[in-house]
Structures are given as structure tokens and as C-alpha cells.
């Protein structure tokens, strides 16, 4: 894991002192609310429906047990004993007070964490594949790149008042688990024909009101040119991105309106005039950062584990957990364990402070002191010995964290929606809860197989509904919550946006509709266990359309 050096430490500490001082000037009237707003947003503090909300960055989703314990302590001391893990590898507290915010930031700084640029019209928390350093299909660990970008973008004098927020994601694997195609900039670490490692740069993806898949603007950027090239993109965006309409201000609209070719030409022109050598960092500095992410001290273990096999043979619940929640590790004898924050009937992504402490304890004992936060709102224990999975599982059961549903129909992404969010047009969480209850039977979930349901409480799409295999968007129809269903979205390698199935339906009808969609899929799928998304791609939406018709009018009439 990255460790701050004296410079990083000073920046974060000074940032806390600066915010304390800014709060003081807000209270004494020197700063108006309008002026203070972007300052508090760039320190992660929103004003939400019931209270302020503080969003803490978990850069590229990696944290250790000490940091997780501190998050728990903050939840207890300054919030209501829980936190919400988001789709962008952040944690949010729902009830902090403005007067306490500087003290909370101080506590975060104590464990090398911060809220810098988790909101506002600036470069946001950089996200990465949650299986970084674990997956066998990795060209290179994406986290050194993400950390480099984190540092370069921190308090960037030119790019702190952009037309709109700006999100960057990095993946180093063949399989894209970071949804790079739907970010303002997506970065894929690739190898060229000569075997050199570099970056494919994708710009202009995004969800929200106008969902778009990003365009590749550079097939292969040499690794040591990254920062200058990013600087060129940001400059073009800062100068030319629209500022007349906040719904058209993201870079995706600029790329779309100019056309990819013209956009690329502008970027290349700017790139040519920039002083690359002074912007790009010395390879020795890159190596310094990368060294922090060197593989931990793995033991030489045999493939497989008789201990685990025997335990799983004795306990069907463990066996199910192993089947569903384990991801293969590149090292023999190890595995990555997904800890689902989606218990049946619980708010997706929420964890209590006790659960956070339990996770910290488990990670410290069994996962080389490392945890990951995923954009699917789950936690990953990345380096668990197969032999110790039974102990990990028992500890998770104890903490109420052993739901065996990773990647299944009840592993639902849901944004906070109208229960917390001031921008919401409808609730998300209760919809997720009701759907999960319908599919509570673990056998049924396994029969259905991989299926991602994603729910957003408004067009801003924080729940990524456009790229849900089943997407649900909550809207306001004349004061009543109304839900639009889309099918066929996918965030991965073959990124696609879901298509609308038909007119919106009321909240009470959503669980029925989802059940009927799943039933229709089970009837249509090929016998070889064809997945939901593959089936939708093969048959299209038509066979699913009848599910939105009112159910069984005949019986009602009888």
C-alpha cells in the first residue's frame, strides 16, 4: 500500500487546517454560502436531504485495518454508527455536522486518508480495479498509475474549477472491472506489439442524463508521457467544455459535439505545445510509487486446499459461499474473498461500525492487512489463504457479513436515493430491499446465475443503472415515484447501455416486474447456462416487454 511521505503528509494536514479556517470565514460572513459551496464540496461535504453528508476518498479502493478502524471510530464519534460505501470507492457518512467536519478530516489525516476532491467540479477520487494485484490477467497493477494521478490532480491550480466534475478510472486487466468506458477518462494499461507497457486512453464516457461510451483517443501512450497528456486533455476541456448548461458540461458532451476526431486534434495540438519533460515525472519517481504496491510477502503454497475442501464438504453454507464469493488469486493457495454488503433486506453498501471493525480484524489476521472497496459497493479481502477461508467465513457469519450473493441477483447496486439525497426524484433503497426479498432463496439465486441489477434515484445515475443488466431509474411522475426499467446494459469489456423496456411503473409493481423478467430469461436461456446478459443480447427486448403489462387481469375479473 502507498504510504504518505513527509510531502503528502504536509499537503493533507495543511488542507485540513485550511478547511478549518474556511469554515471560520463562512461563519463570520467573509465567505457567502455561494462562495463557500465549492470549497466545502472539494473537501467532500455536501448538504443533503436531512443533514450534511461527508464523502471520504478511498483511493483506488485500497485500505488497511487501521484505516478501517478509524472509519468505524468516526462513524461512532461523529455520525450514527454506520457508513455507506459508494459506487466510486468512497465511504459516505450521512449525519456529520459542519462544525465537526474539520475534526473528522483531522482524524482521517491521522491514518493518511482525506476527503480531498471527492466532490466539486474538479478531478475526483481516482478509481481502479478492485482485484488489482490479485487478478491473473493483469498486465500491471493499476494502482501506481492511480496514485500518480491522485497526486498530480491534488489541488491542481488550473483544474480545480472545471465546467463540471471529472472522473478517472484505471484498469490493468484484460477484463475491465473498473468500468473505464463510462468515465470522463478511462485508462487501460496495455502492451504494444513491441511488448512495452503503456496506456490506452479513453475519453468522454459517462452516465447521467446523456449516457455515452467513451472514445479511444490514444491507442498507445508511452507510460512516461501520462501526466503531460492528461494535462492536454484537461486544458482542452477546461477552456472549451460548456459552461452555459450544467447538463451539457461534462467532457462527454464536448467530445460528442466536436466529434472524436476534432477533439483528438485539439488535444494533440495542446499536447504538442506543452512542455512534456517538465510535466512528466522522472521514472525514478514512478518506480518509488510503484514500489509501495509490490506484491506482499506471499507464502509458497500448493494449489488448492484440502482443509477448505473438507470443511466445505461438511457445511453446505460454507460450500455455497466458496462457490459464489471467491475470486481466483494469481498466487497458488490464495484467494480473494468478496464480502457482500447486500444482506437480504438491508440497504446496499451500508456497514455498521461494528462490521467495519470486524472487517479490520479479519483483514489483519487473514488478508495481509489489506481491504478493498468495490464499485459494486462490496468489500474484498484480497489475499486470503484457501486454508483459512473457513475461519474467515466463520468470522463473517459472526459479523452478519457472510451473504453468499456476490455477482448474483441480490447483489444490487443502489444509490442512496430519496431516503438521503436531496437531488433524488424517487427512492432506491426500498426498491432494492423488496427485490432482494423476492430472491432471498439462495438456490434460486444460484439457478439464475450472474445478474447485475443497478438502481438510481434520479437521472444523475449514481447507481449506474444504464450499465445494469437490469437497470432501474426512479423518477417523479406528478408527485408519485415511478420507475423505468432498462435491459442489456453492461459495464465491462463489451460496455453497453441498457435499453428501455417500456413505460415507467409504480414502486409496488417493480418487484413483480423483475421476477417476471428473470422468469422469462430462465425460459429463454440456452441449456448450457447462458447468462442473463448474453440471453438479452441474443433475443433482444421484445420477449421481455409483456412483463410490464398488468399481471393477471383475468383472475381479478373472476
Amino acid at each position, binding site marked *: 500500500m502507498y504510504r504518505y511521505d513527509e510531502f503528502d503528509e504536509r499537503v493533507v494536514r495543511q488542507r485540513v487546517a485550511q478547511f478549518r479556517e474556511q469554515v471560520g470565514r463562512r461563519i463570520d460572513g467573509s465567505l457567502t454560502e455561494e462562495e463557500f459551496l465549492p470549497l466545502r464540496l472539494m473537501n467532500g461535504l455536501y448538504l443533503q436531504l*436531512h*443533514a450534511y453528508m461527508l464523502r471520504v476518498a478511498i483511493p483506488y479502493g485500497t485500505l488497511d485495518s487501521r484505516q478501517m478502524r478509524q472509519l468505524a471510530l468516526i462513524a461512532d464519534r461523529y455520525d450514527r454508527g454506520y457508513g455507506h460505501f459508494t459506487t466510486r470507492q468512497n465511504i459516505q457518512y450521512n449525519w456529520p455536522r*459542519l462544525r465537526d467536519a474539520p475534526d473528522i478530516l483531522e482524524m482521517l489525516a491521522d491514518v493518511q486518508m482525506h476527503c480531498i476532491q471527492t466532490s466539486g467540479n474538479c478531478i475526483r477520487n481516482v478509481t481502479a480495479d478492485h482485484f488489482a494485484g490479485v487478478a491473473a490477467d493483469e498486465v500491471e497493477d493499476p494502482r501506481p498509475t492511480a496514485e500518480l494521478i491522485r497526486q498530480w490532480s491534488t489541488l491542481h491550480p488550473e483544474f480545480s474549477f472545471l465546467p463540471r466534475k471529472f472522473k478517472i478510472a484505471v484498469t490493468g486487466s484484460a477484463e475491465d472491472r473498473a468500468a473505464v468506458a463510462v468515465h470522463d477518462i478511462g485508462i487501460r494499461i496495455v502492451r504494444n506489439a513491441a511488448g512495452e507497457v503503456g496506456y490506452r486512453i479513453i475519453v468522454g464516457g459517462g452516465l447521467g442524463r446523456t449516457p455515452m461510451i467513451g472514445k479511444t483517443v490514444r491507442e498507445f501512450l508511452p507510460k512516461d508521457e501520462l501526466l503531460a497528456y492528461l494535462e492536454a486533455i484537461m486544458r482542452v476541456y477546461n477552456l472549451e467544455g460548456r459552461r452555459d448548461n450544467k447538463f451539457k458540461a461534462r467532457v462527454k458532451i464536448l467530445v460528442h459535439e466536436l466529434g472524436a476526431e476534432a477533439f483528438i486534434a485539439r488535444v494533440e495540438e495542446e499536447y504538442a505545445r506543452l512542455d512534456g519533460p517538465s510535466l512528466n515525472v522522472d521514472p525514478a519517481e514512478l518506480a518509488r510509487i510503484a514500489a509501495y504496491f509490490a506484491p506482499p510477502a506471499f507464502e509458497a503454497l500448493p494449489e488448492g486446499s484440502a482443509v477448505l475442501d473438507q470443511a466445505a464438504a461438511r457445511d453446505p453454507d460454507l460450500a455455497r459461499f466458496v462457490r459464489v464469493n471467491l475470486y481466483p488469486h494469481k498466487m497458488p493457495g490464495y484467494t480473494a474473498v468478496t464480502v457482500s454488503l447486500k444482506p437480504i433486506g438491508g440497504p446496499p453498501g451500508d456497514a455498521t461500525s461494528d462490521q467495519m471493525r470486524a472487517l479490520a480484524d479479519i483483514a489483519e489476521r487473514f488478508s495481509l492487512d489489506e481491504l478493498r472497496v468495490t464499485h459494486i459497493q462490496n468489500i474484498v479481502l484480497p489475499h486470503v489463504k484457501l486454508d483459512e477461508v473457513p475461519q474467515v467465513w466463520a468470522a463473517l457469519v459472526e459479523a452478519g457479513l457472510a451473504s453468499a450473493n456476490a455477482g448474483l441477483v441480490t447483489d444490487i447496486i443502489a444509490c442512496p436515493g*430519496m*431516503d438521503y439525497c436531496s437531488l433524488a426524484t424517487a427512492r432506491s433503497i426500498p426498491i432494492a430491499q423488496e427485490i432482494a426479498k423476492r430472491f432471498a432463496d439462495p438456490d434460486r439465486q444460484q439457478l439464475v446465475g450472474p445478474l447485475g441489477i443497478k438502481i438510481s434515484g434520479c437521472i444523475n445515475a449514481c447507481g449506474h443503472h444504464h450499465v445494469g443488466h437490469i437497470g432501474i431509474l426512479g423518477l417523479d411522475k406528478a408527485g408519485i415515484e415511478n420507475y423505468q426499467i432498462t435491459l442489456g446494459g453492461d459495464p465491462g469489456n463489451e460496455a453497453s447501455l441498457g435499453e428501455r423496456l417500456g413505460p415507467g411503473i409504480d414502486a409496488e409493481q417493480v418487484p413483480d416486474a423483475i421476477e417476471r423478467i428473470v422468469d422469462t430469461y430462465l425460459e429463454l436461456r440456452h441449456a448450457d447456462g447462458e447468462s442473463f446478459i448474453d440471453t438479452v443480447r441474443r433475443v433482444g427486448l421484445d420477449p421481455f416487454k409483456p412483463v410490464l403489462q398488468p399481471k393477471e387481469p383475468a383472475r381479478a375479473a373472476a
Partner: protein
Amino acid sequence: MAAGKRAALPLVLTASDLLDGDVVFYAGAGWARGLDEAAVAADEAQAAQFEAILAETEAKGDPVAPYLMTVRIDADGALVPGHVRERIRSRGPTIRTDLGPQARQERQHVSV
């Protein structure tokens, strides 16, 4: 109507406390934490007065993000926000009835 986009009558003036972020309602002499204590504008003249207080509050910046919100008055005389968003905002999350003003109210109800 002069203000085409103004919330319909009857209405209350609401905002968020600057230091705590709590939802507050204009209560005549100050700002209260509970909707039941809110002052209600029932006619155009009162609404105009509320609009003036709204503008003053905005200029002062404390409490923050003030706006007018339509309510109805139910059979028991209690104020009920017209829109589901405002109902949730005035009570607390529907998925956590132990949090927000609703928890406070429940405790009061228990003690009655």
C-alpha cells in the same frame, strides 16, 4: 399569480441549519427543528411576507438553502408536506425510522 413558480398555498418556509445541517422550519420568532412548530402562510399576503423572509435568509446565508414548501393540514390539524420528498425530509429516511426527526417524534409519542 404573481410568482408563477412559487409553491402553492398553504406553505411553510424551510431551510437547513448552517452548523448542524438539521432541517429547520421558520416558526415566526425563529427557526424550529420540527414541522409541527412551523409557521404557516395560508394566504397571498402571508406568502409574500414569507418570500421576503426567504430573500433575507438567502442574503444572510444562515440557515442555508431556504425554500417554500407546500403543506396540507390533516384532520387532526397536523401539517403534512405535499410532496413525498418533503415528507421524507421532514421525518427522516423511510428505511431507518430510528434516525431523523421521526425518531424524536416517536420518543415523544411513547412518553405521552
